[in-house]
C-alpha cells in the first residue's frame, strides 16, 4: 500500500514536472499569442485542449500555467518551511520565555482563517506572483513550527545532543547539525502536502479575482477566464481544473506515501 501511494504520487508529480519543464519543447503554440479568428475552438488535433476566448491554444496555456502554479506552490512552501523550521527550532531549543512568546504567536496565527488573512493582504497590496508566494508562505508555517519544536523537545535531552554540548558545540551548530536533520522526516511530509495546499490556494485566489496577474497564465487564472464561457463550452474550464486536481492528488499521494514510509502507523 505504502509503495503504491508513493509510486503513484511520484509518477504523477514527475510527469507533471517534466511536462512543465519541457514546456517549450512540447507546446506547438505560444501561450500568449492571440488569434481572434480561432476563438473558442473545440479540442481537435490542431489544438488538443481547444482554444480560449482570444484564440490562444489552451494546451500551451495550461502547460505554461503549470510553471507558474507549481512555482508558487514550491516557493510558498519553501518560505513556510524556512519560517517554520527557524521558529520551531528556536522555540524548542531555548524554551522558557522565548518558547512561550513564539508559541503564542503560532496560536494567534492559527486562529485566523488563512483564506481571510490572505484575501485581506493580497487585495490591499500591490499584487504580483511574489506577493502571493510570500503571503501564502507566511500564513502556512505554523504547523511546521509546532512539528519541529515537538521533535526538538523530544531530542534535546537525548544522549548524543548532551554529548555534543559537553564537547563544547554552539547552539547554532547543535540545532543545524543535530536537531534539524532528526526532525526532517515529518517536516518533509508536511512540506509535500503543503505544496498541494498552496496550489489550491492560488487557484482559489484567482477564482476570487485576486490571483496571479496578466499576462502570465496560471491554472487559477486560466480557469477564471474559462468560467466566463461556462454554459457555452466546457474546455476552457475543464482542463485547468483537471490539472489542479491531478497536481494536488499527486502531491497528496506522495506526501502520504512518504509519511507511511518514514512513520509507519503514526499520524
Amino acid at each position, binding site marked *: *500500500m505504502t509503495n503504491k*501511494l508513493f509510486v503513484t504520487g511520484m509518477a504523477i508529480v514527475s510527469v507533471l514536472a517534466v511536462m512543465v519543464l519541457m514546456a517549450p519543447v512540447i507546446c506547438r503554440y505560444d501561450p500568449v499569442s492571440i488569434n481572434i479568428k480561432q476563438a473558442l475552438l473545440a479540442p481537435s488535433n490542431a489544438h488538443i485542449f481547444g482554444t480560449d476566448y482570444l484564440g490562444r491554444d489552451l494546451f500551451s496555456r495550461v502547460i505554461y500555467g503549470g510553471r507558474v502554479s507549481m512555482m508558487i506552490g514550491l516557493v510558498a512552501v519553501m518560505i513556510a518551511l524556512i519560517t517554520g523550521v527557524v521558529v520551531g527550532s528556536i522555540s524548542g531549543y531555548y524554551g522558557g520565555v522565548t518558547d512561550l512568546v513564539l508559541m*503564542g*504567536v503560532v*496560536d*494567534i*496565527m*492559527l*486562529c*485566523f*482563517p*488563512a*483564506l*481571510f*488573512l490572505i*484575501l*485581506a*493582504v493580497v*487585495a*490591499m*497590496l*500591490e499584487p504580483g506572483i511574489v506577493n502571493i508566494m510570500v503571503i501564502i508562505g507566511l500564513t502556512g508555517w505554523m504547523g511546521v513550527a509546532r512539528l519541529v519544536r515537538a521533535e526538538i523537545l523530544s531530542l534535546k535531552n537525548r544522549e548524543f545532543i548532551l554529548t555534543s554540548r559537553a564537547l563544547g558545540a554552539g547552539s547554532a551548530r547543535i540545532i543545524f547539525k543535530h536537531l534539524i536533520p532528526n526532525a526532517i522526516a515529518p517536516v518533509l511530509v508536511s512540506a509535500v502536502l503543503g505544496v*498541494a495546499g498552496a496550489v*489550491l490556494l492560488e*487557484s*482559489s485566489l484567482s*477564482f*476570487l479575482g485576486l490571483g496571479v496577474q496578466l499576462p502570465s497564465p496560471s491554472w487559477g487564472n486560466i*480557469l477564471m477566464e474559462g*468560467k466566463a464561457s*461556462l*454554459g457555452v463550452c466546457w474546455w476552457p*474550464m475543464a482542463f485547468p*481544473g483537471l490539472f*489542479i*486536481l*491531478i*497536481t*494536488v*492528488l499527486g502531491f*497528496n*499521494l506522495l506526501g*502520504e506515501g512518504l509519511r507511511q514510509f518514514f512513520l509507519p*502507523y*503514526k*499520524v
Partner: protein
Amino acid sequence: MRHYLIRRIILTVPTIIGISLVSFVVIHLAPGNPVDSMTMLDPKVSFEAREKLMAQYGLDRPIYAQYMDWVRRIVFLDFGVSYRDGQKVIAKVAARAPVTLLINILSVLLILLIAIPIGAASAVRCGGLYDRFTTVIVFIGFAFPGFWLALLLMSLFGIRLGWLPVQGIVSLDFDTLTAVGKTVDVAMHLVLPVFVSCVGGIAGMSRYVRNNMLEILHKDYIKMARAKGIKERDVIYKHALGNAVLPIITILGLSVPGLIGGSVIFESVFGIPGMGRLFYESVMSRDYPVVMAVLVIGALLTLVGNLMADISYSVADPRVRYDK
C-alpha cells in the same frame, strides 16, 4: 478540573490581544484608503468632498490612536459603523453569521457521520479492495478545487437535471410555504453548498480515522484483547474505534478556521449572503471596520472552537490535563 479550566481560559487573554493587533495591523499597513474606492472616477465628486470624507472617517489621525480607540470600543462589541452604508458593523455581522454557522455546523456533522464509518471500515480491511477503492475516492475528493466542483455540480444538478436550486438559500415564494415546505426549501438550497464545503473534510477526516485506527489496531492492548478471545467485532467497535475517534475532537477544533475560510468560496459561487461573502465584499470596498470585525470574530470563533475541543477532550480523557 476547575484549575485546568481556569488556567486554559486565562491563557487565551494574550491570544485575544494578539488577534486584535494582527487584525488591525494587517488592514492599516495596506496602501490605499476607502475614500478612494468610494468616490473616485465619478466626475461629480469634487476634490473638497474627498478631503471632507477622509476627516469624517477619522482617517487623518495617527495609527496608534486609531488602534487604541478601536480596541476600547470592541471590548463592548462596538465595531463601529460600516464605511459603505453607515450600518452598525456588529448588526451586519449578526445578520450574516447564522447562515455561515448553519452550513458549517451541518458540514461538520456530515463529515463525522460519513468519515468515521468509511475510515474505520477501510482500516479494518486495510489493503483490501474496499480500502483501495475508498483510498482512491478519498484522495480524489481531497484534491478537488472547491469552486470548480461547485460550478460543475451546479451546472449538472441545477441546469442539466434541474433538480436543485442554484442560488441563494430560499426560494422567492418562501413566505407562502408551510413550515414543512420551508424546511424542505431551505434544505434543497443547502444540499450543494453543504456538500461542496464538506467534501474535503470527509476525505481528510476519513483518512485520519483510518490511520488512527490502524495505529491502534497494532497496539498491544488490542492484540491482548484478541488473544483473550474477545470477538473481533467487539475488539474493533468497542475497544479500537472509541480510542481512534477521541482525538477527532481536537482535529475538529483545528478545522474551524479552514471551514470559515472556505465559506468565502462557496458563498460566492452559490450566492449565499453569509460571513464569507460579507468579508469578500468588505475587502474589495475597503470597508475597514467590517474587515477588522470579521477577522476578529472569525479568529475568536476558532479560539472558542479550540477551547471547547480542549475542554471536552480533557473531560473525555483525563490524562490530558496532567500531561500538559
